[in-house]
Structures are given as C-alpha cells and as structure tokens.
C-alpha cells in the first residue's frame, strides 16, 4: 500500500488539499490576501513596462514599484499580526495592528509622493 500514486497525481492531490485548506481561512484574511495580490500584480506590470520602454525617469519607476512592494509588505505584516492562529501575537489587539498598518502606510506614501517627481 506504499507507492500507488504517480507524481502527477501527487501534484493534483497537493493542489486539491491546498485549495480546500485555503477555503477554510477566515474572510478578513482572504481580503488581505487579495490586497497583497493586487499590489504585486501592479508591481509586475510596472517592471514589464520598464523592460519595454527603458528606465528613463528611474526615480518614478523606483517610486512606483516601491509603493506596491511596500504596501504588500505592510499588508503581510498586518495579516501575521491579525491571524488568530498565530501564537506569537496572541496578546496583540488587532486594532493596534491595524493602527500600525495605517501609520506605516502614511509614511510610505509620503515618501513615494516625494520621490515620484
């Protein structure tokens, strides 16, 4: 009863189990994941554009990519701190985590607007 499944069927089983496990996450975490995905997607679009057109206003490119990557990173931190299954941040109120998220985003966007030119 050992190796009865091939690698292809292994990959398919893995994918199915991941999907079903993910379906079980709470809704607010899914919203954060959606936001991160949107940020990374925007960053990728900018990188592809730069590859086509060239890096002429390099400061604008960096500013645009940094805004996407920065908010993605901050959203990931928020998800870590808000996730109830995370033992490390058991004592941290989720409001505090959200307040940190908002403040850091404010600073980030201030820097971005300055560097955008």
């Amino acid at each position: 009863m050992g190796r009865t499944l091939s690698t292809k069927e292994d990959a398919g089983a893995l994918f199915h189990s991941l999907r079903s496990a993910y379906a079980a996450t709470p809704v607010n975490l899914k919203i954060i994941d959606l936001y991160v995905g949107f940020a990374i997607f925007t960053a990728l679009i900018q990188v592809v554009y730069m590859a086509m057109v060239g890096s002429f206003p390099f400061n604008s490119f960096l500013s645009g990519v940094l805004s996407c990557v920065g908010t993605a990173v901050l959203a990931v931190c928020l998800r870590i701190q808000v996730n109830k299954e995370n033992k490390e941040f058991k004592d941290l109120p989720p409001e505090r985590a959200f307040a940190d998220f908002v403040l850091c985003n404010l600073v980030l966007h201030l820097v971005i607007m300055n560097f955008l030119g």
Partner: protein
Amino acid sequence: MGKLWLICIASISILLPFLCNAFSPETPTDRRVLVLLDDFAIMSSHSLYFNALKSRGFDLEFKLADDPKIALQRYGQYLYDALILFCPSVERFGGSIDVAAIVNFVDSGHDLIVAADVNASDLIREVGTECGVDFDEDPSAMVIDHIGYAVSGTEGDHTLIASDDFIKSDVILGGKKIEAPILFRGIGHAVSPANSLVLKVLSASPSAYSANPKSKLSTPPPLTGSAISLVSIVQARNNARLLITGSLSMFSNRFFRSGVQKAGSQTKHEKSGNEQFLTEISKWIFHERGHLKAVNVKHHRVGETDEPALYRINDELEYAVEIYEWSGTSWEPYVANDVQLQFYMMSPYVLKTLSSDKKGLYSTSFKVPDVYGVFQFKVEHQKLGYTSLSLSKQIPVRPYRHNEYERFIPAAYPYYGAAFSMMAGFFIFSFAHLYSK
C-alpha cells in the same frame, strides 16, 4: 568778415584730407587718381581711355614718373584714392614714391592699375611681384603666339596677339558679352596657383609662349600656354582692387580703334574688344561693380521684435541682414541666392541659406540646437569678383532653467498611475478590513 573767411578756410583745409579717403561707404564719389607716365605723349596716345575715366567722374592728375615733386601722402593723409602706373620703363620714382610706398598705399585700401611692357624696368617688375604676379625674367621677352595672333598688315613676328580667353564673371567684365578679341602686345606674367586672391582675367591661348622674338630659342621657354596671364586682377583682403597687365599699348587709342581678325578665323571684327574690356574692368577696379556692404544685422525670437541678450536651447529665432551693392552712383539691393548663415561654435551647428526679398533684405529662421554655449552668427560670403563679406556676432545660449522643464514626464505616467492606485487601494482596503465580519 575777415575772421569768418579765415575760419571757413581753416575748417575746409582741415576737412579736405579727410575727403580723400579710400573707397568707403561714406565717401564713394569723385575720387582723385594719380596717373604716372613715362612721357606726356601717353596722355594723347591713350586719350580715349583717360576720357572714359574722366567722364565717370574721376579727377585724373598726370605726372611724370620721375617728377621730384610727386607724393602719395602728406603729413600722414593720402592725397589720392587710386594710382595708375603707365610707366613701364621708369628706373626710379621721383619724389617720395617707391615700391614700399606703393605697397602701403594698397595696404590702406586704395586701388592700383599697373601696366608693364616690353623691356619693363626692374622697378615695375618688383611692383608686380609685390602684387602677386611674376613677370617673365627675360627683360626683352614678349608673348608670341603663332596660332592665335592678330592678322595685321605690318607686324609679322606674331607678337600682336588676339586673345578671347576671358574669365567667366559678369561682375568683373560686365553683363554684355565681349564679341571681338582683345589686341595685346607686350610681356606675359604668371600667377601662382597657390594664391587665391589673384585671378587671370585674360589668359593667353594654349599655343602662346613668352620669349624674345629677335633671338633664337635655345631652351624651352619657362612661360607657355594658358599659364601665361595677359591681364590679372587682385582683390586684396582689405578690398583694395589691383589690375596688372603686361601691355601698355593695349590701352592705346590705336588698339581701341583698330579692327581685329584672329588668325585662323574668318570673322573680321570692325573694332577690337579693347575699349569695352578695359572700360568694364576699370569699372570693377574702381568699385563701381561688385562692392558689397552688409548693414543692419538683426536677430530676435519669433514673435518678438527686440534683440535678446541671450537665447535658450530649442528657441525659435529669426535672423536678418541687409546687403547692398554700390552701382557707381547709389547703393542698390544685392540679389543672390547663396548667402549662407552659420550658427557656429567651433563648427557650424546650423547652416542655412538666407532667402532674399529682392530689396536687399536677407532673412531666415531656425531652431537653436540642443547645445548650450557661446555661439556666433557668422555670414561668410566670398564670391568671384565681389568683396568678401565676413560678419560675426556673438550670442550666448543657455540651458533650461529648473522651472522650464516639463512638469510631468509622459513616459512616467504608468508609475504615477500605479502610485495613486496603490493609495486608493489602501484606502478601500482599510474600509473593507474594518467593516468585514
């Protein structure tokens, strides 16, 4: 009353030297010409030529070349505006004139006509050398042409030649074509090909050579063919004009009136081309043709009228200049289609042909190049027979000021859009996060 007379005479005598300048745009009329002769018989034997000059308003003063009282200048002011040397056999000039004085005279912008002849003296040859032409070294050499000689009843040694190898220039020779050939009897000279200021107006035919007609030819002659120049002109860089020729008899009444038939050609011309040729060329020598002046250089930005002190890169600007030509009596507009303007800094960044409005105004407009520095508006116009125009005006060009760049770079619009969409996304997300269950 007496005092008034004294003041009048004093002021006139102070002004008089200033009236006898070289050709200048302020005093271009009625000039005094000194004519130095070997003997006064030339006055009557060449009277047609002198009368033509007098009828155009020139004051001719005839003196013998070794007259001890002749002088070109007194107390530093020149007494004459032009000099004609019809004295091929003078050994030493009288008075205060010598080769150095003649060279200084030309260097200060005055015109000169020199006619040498057979057995010309060393002095006249030296004057020719200073002007840039080299006469044949053999003193008794003449130009001989056994194929292009003038058919005549008397002289049979083919030293009287009929030449029609003219320079192609309407400015120098006048608009009307010279039908009959020119009668010439005298010595030839050579012009150095490296010299760009001397031009051969009348060259000998390829079959001519310069040698002594009375002695046998033992070695090949040094001057042969079309390299022999019969009549040359020099336009100096200070716009003084010189005429050098090797035949005094070319100017004589006899040659003016005689008919001419070139050997080997059927046509017999009633009158030689000498009178027309020499009259037209002396018009050029005395600046009645081909003397240009450029005035009123103006430049400004398109849409403005006053001249700025400096331009910015990528500015649109207009340049205009007025060019006139002296016609003998007045300044006429100069019409040409090859006056060019250079916007120059070490090399011309912009080279444009100025367009003329047929009334003497030349203008063009162009965009300042994308390079900053100190440029010059340069007009360099050098045409055969015309005075050279060399205008130059310096103008600085500055780069953009920090607030003259475009505010938003079109190539960066996606990045602007991404940054703002992230801000909007953050705003919407924070609402979604707070109000989700």
